[in-house]
C-alpha cells in the first residue's frame, strides 16, 4: 500500500511534466481511432514530422527565450526573410547550395544580434523589439523578392526540408532504406536508454534518486516503444520512405539544446535570469550577455526553420512563415513554460509542438474545416495553461 501511495505522490509532484506526455499519447490514440487507423501509417507519420519540423525547430529557440522571460514575435518573418535571401543567393548570385545555406544561417545570426542588441543593451522590451522585427523582416522579405516567388531550388538544397536518408542509395531493392532507418532507430534507442541508465546510476550513487524504480522502468519502456514504433513506421511498414533528414536534424538539436539548458553554464544562466533577474545580477551573472546570445541563437534557429520550410515547398514566397511565431509560442506554453519566465524545458516545447501537429493532422484527416481547427487549437492552448495555473495554485505555489 505504501508503495502505491509513494508512486501516486510522486506522479502528483510531476503531474505537469508527465501530463503533457500523457496528453500527447491520448491525442494520438484518439485520432488513431477517429481516423480508422489512418493517423499512424507510414506516409502520414512521415508527413507529420516533416510538416511540423520547422515549428519544432522554432519552438526550441522560443522556449529558451520564454524561460528567460522574453518573447519573440518575429520568427515567422525572419524565417521568410532568410528563405528569400537563400533564394536570392542561389538564383541571382549563383552561390552553390551549401554556401547559400551557410550564408543563410549567418544572416539569421545577424538578425538575432540586431534584435538582441535592442533588447539586451538598449533595454527595450522584447515584445516591442520583435513586434517591430516582425514588420521589418516581413517588409524586407517583400522588398528582396519584389513580391514574386523564387522557385525552383536545387535538389541538394531541398533535401533539408523534404529529403530522406539515402533513399536511392541501393535502387534495386527496398531493403537498404529499411536497414538504414532501423540502424538509426537502434542507435537512438541505445543512446537514450544509456543516458537514462547513466543518469540514474549517478543519482543512486549519491542517494539523490527520488524516482521509484517502477516508474523508471515504465519510462524506459515507453521510450523504447516510441523509438521502435517510429522506426517501424518510417522504415519497415508498407509505404515507408525511410528517415526524413529533418528528423535527424531535429533529433540532434533536441539532444544538444536539452543538455545546454540542463547542464551548461549558459543554460543555468538563462533559468536564473528568467527566475529572478535581480538575484541573477547580484550573483554576478551577465544578464545582458545572456539575453543577447539568446536572440542570436533564436535568429540562427529561425534561419534554419526558414531553410527547411523553403526546401520543403521548393519556393520562397513573400507570405512564407506567416503565423509561425504563434505556433512556436503556443508549443512552448502547452509544453509547460511559464509566462513569467524561469520555467520550461526543450522536450516540453517539442511535445507541445507535436500535440498541435497531431491535432492539425488528425483533424485534416477527418476532413474537419480549418476554421474549426483554429478554434480547437486555441482552446487547447488556453486549457493547457489553465491546467498549469490550477496545478500551481493547488500545490500552494506562488
Amino acid at each position: 500500500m505504501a508503495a502505491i501511495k509513494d508512486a501516486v505522490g510522486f506522479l502528483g509532484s510531476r503531474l505537469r511534466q508527465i501530463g503533457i506526455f500523457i496528453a500527447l499519447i491520448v491525442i494520438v490514440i484518439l485520432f488513431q481511432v477517429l481516423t480508422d487507423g489512418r493517423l499512424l501509417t507510414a506516409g502520414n507519420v512521415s508527413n507529420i514530422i516533416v510538416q511540423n519540423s520547422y515549428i519544432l525547430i522554432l519552438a526550441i529557440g522560443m522556449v529558451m527565450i520564454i524561460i528567460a522571460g522574453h518573447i519573440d514575435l518575429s520568427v515567422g518573418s525572419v524565417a521568410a526573410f532568410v528563405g528569400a535571401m537563400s533564394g536570392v543567393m542561389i538564383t541571382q548570385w549563383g552561390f552553390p547550395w551549401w554556401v547559400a545555406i551557410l550564408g543563410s544561417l549567418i544572416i539569421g545570426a545577424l538578425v538575432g544580434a540586431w534584435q538582441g542588441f535592442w533588447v539586451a543593451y538598449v533595454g527595450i522590451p522584447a515584445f516591442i523589439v520583435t513586434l517591430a522585427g516582425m514588420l521589418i523582416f516581413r517588409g524586407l522579405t517583400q522588398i528582396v523578392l519584389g513580391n514574386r516567388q523564387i522557385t525552383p531550388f536545387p535538389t541538394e538544397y531541398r533535401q533539408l526540408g523534404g529529403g530522406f536518408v539515402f533513399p536511392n542509395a541501393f535502387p534495386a531493392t527496398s531493403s537498404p532504406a529499411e536497414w538504414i532507418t532501423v540502424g538509426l532507430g537502434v542507435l537512438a534507442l541505445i543512446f537514450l536508454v544509456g543516458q537514462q541508465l547513466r543518469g540514474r546510476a549517478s543519482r543512486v550513487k549519491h542517494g539523490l534518486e527520488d524516482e521509484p524504480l517502477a516508474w523508471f522502468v515504465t519510462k524506459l519502456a515507453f521510450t523504447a516503444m516510441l523509438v521502435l514504433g517510429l522506426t517501424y513506421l518510417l522504415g519497415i511498414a508498407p509505404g515507408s520512405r525511410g528517415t526524413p533528414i529533418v528528423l535527424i536534424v531535429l533529433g540532434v538539436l533536441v539532444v544538444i539544446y536539452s543538455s545546454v539548458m540542463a547542464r551548461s553554464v549558459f543554460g543555468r544562466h538563462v533559468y536564473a535570469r528568467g527566475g529572478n533577474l535581480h538575484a541573477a545580477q547580484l550573483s554576478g551573472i551577465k544578464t545582458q550577455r545572456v539575453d543577447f546570445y539568446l536572440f542570436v541563437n533564436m535568429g540562427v534557429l529561425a534561419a534554419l526553420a526558414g531553410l527547411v520550410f523553403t526546401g520543403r515547398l521548393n519556393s520562397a514566397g513573400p507570405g512564407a512563415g506567416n503565423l509561425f511565431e504563434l505556433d512556436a509560442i503556443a508549443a512552448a506554453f502547452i509544453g509547460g513554460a511559464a509566462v513569467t519566465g524561469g520555467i520550461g524545458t526543450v522536450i516540453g516545447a517539442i511535445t507541445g509542438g507535436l500535440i498541435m501537429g497531431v491535432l492539425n493532422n488528425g483533424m485534416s484527416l477527418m476532413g474537419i474545416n480549418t476554421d474549426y481547427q483554429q478554434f480547437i487549437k486555441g482552446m487547447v492552448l488556453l486549457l493547457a495553461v489553465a491546467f498549469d495555473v490550477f496545478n500551481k495554485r493547488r500545490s500552494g505555489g506562488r
Partner: protein
Amino acid sequence: MVTNILEMRQITKTFPGVKALQDVNLTVQRGEVHAICGENGAGKSTLMKVLSGVYPHGSYDGEIAFEGDTVQFRDIGDSEAKGIVIIHQELALSPFLSIAENIFLGNEIATRGFIDWDKTNLEASKLLARVGLSDSPITKIVDIGVGKQQLVEIAKALSKEVKLLILDEPTAALNDEDSAHLLDLIKHLREQGITSIIISHKLNEIKAIADKVTILRDGRTIETLDMRADDVSEDRIIKGMVGRDLEHRYPDRTPKIGEEIFRIEGWTVHHPSEAGRVVIHGANLSARAGEVVGIAGLMGAGRTELAMSVFGRSYGKGITGKVFMHGKEVRTRTVSEAIGNGIAYATEDRKHFGLNLLEDVKRNVSMAALGKLAKRGWVDGEKEFIIANEYRKSMNIKAPSVSSLTGKLSGGNQQKVVLSKWMYSDPDVLILDEPTRGIDVGAKYEIYTIINRLASEGKAVIVISSELPELLGICDRIYALSEGHLTGEFGIADATPELLMQYMTKEKEK
C-alpha cells in the same frame, strides 16, 4: 463627546511562527498628535495595519474602539468610511494622473457616471490650499517632488473627511525644508481638530510636534509618555526603545583579528533617478580579517545603498571613491568584478534579490560561482550535488533534499541557502544586509553561529542591521550611519544602545 478618539485594547497578532504583537494597548485622545516609536520590527506597522483594516477583524485578537464604539473593520474601505486614513511610506499615487484626479481617485465627483471636471478641480484647489500647496490641480504627479506628493496624499485624506490621520514615516524621503513644512501642516491640522498618529524614527521631530509618545518594543507596549506634562528628552525615548535583556541570545566567541582586508575611502553615491540627491556622503570604512563589523542605521539611512553601490555598483549613479582589498585598490564596477575581488553581498530582500525561488537548493547554492563547477561551459552536476549537500549539512539547512525548491523553505532556511551561495564563492569580505530579518529566534542563533564561523576562518564580515542588540551581541566594531553619513565608529567596549541610537538619529552637521 468622548475624549478618547481611539482605544486599541489587548491587540495580539500572530504570524506563522512569530508573535508580531502581544497585548498591545494604544489610547489616542481627540485632537492630539500621537507618536509611535520603536525599532524596526517592534510592531509599529503591524499595529497600524490592524487599525486600518489591512488585517481584517478576526485575524487578530483584541478590541478596537473608535469614537466610543467598538469597530470591526473588514478592509481599508471600512476604516476609511469611519474617517481613519493611513498614508504609507510608499506613496499610493498614480504618477501619470493629475493631482485632482489622484485626490478623488476611487471617490470621483460625478453625475450619472460622468466626471464633473470643473467641480473636481475646484474642490481639489480648495483642498490644496488647506495643505499649503499652490500648484495647479491639473499638474501631473510625476512633475512634482516627493514633498509635494506627500501633501497631495494628505489632501486626499482630507477629501475623505478624515478624523484620524495615520502617517507612516512621513518625512523619511523628504529634505529638511519639506519636512518642516509637513510638520507645520500636521500642527495646523491639529488646530482644525484632526487627530494624527505619526510613526517616526526621527526623535527631534517627535519632540517638536508630538503630544504623546507610545513606545513599542518586541511587539509589546512599553509605555506612553506625555510630552507636554513631563519633560521627556530624546534619551528618555531611546531608553524605552532599546532597553532589553541581551544575555544568551548570542553565541560566545573570542575574536582573532588580523590584517585589514577591506577598506573604502571617500565613497559617495548619488540617487539613481533624482539628480543632485546625495545618498552616501564620503564614507570611509574598513574591516579586518576575523573581524565582525556592524553598520547601525535606521531605515532610510542609506545602509543598503552603501552596500549595493560597493558591490558592483548595483545601486546609484555618479559613484566616486575607492575600494581597497588587502591594501590594493581594486575595480568593482560590475558585480562579477566585485565577486572576483573577493567581495560578497547577501541582500536584505532574499525573495526579490537573493534567491531564484523557482529553482532548487543546489542550483541556488551554485549560482554565484557556477564557473567553479564547470569545465568548458558544462556544469558538473554530480559535484554540484555533493557540494550543495555539504552545505546543507554544515549549515543545517532544513530541506528534504538539495533538490527541494527554495520557494518552499522557511525564511531562516532560505537565508542559510543565501549564505551558502556566498560562502561557496569563497569571498574575503562578506557584507550581510539584515541577515536575520524575518527569521525566528532559533534560526537567528544559527545565523550568528555561522557569522562567527566565517570570522574564525579569517574572513571579514560586515553586518548591516537596525537591531541594535544584535549588533552589540555579535560585532567587534560598529559604525553608525545617519542620512548617508557615517556619524561615528565605536569599539564594542564603548558602544551602548543609547550612544548608537544617538548617532543613528543625529542630524547632519551643519
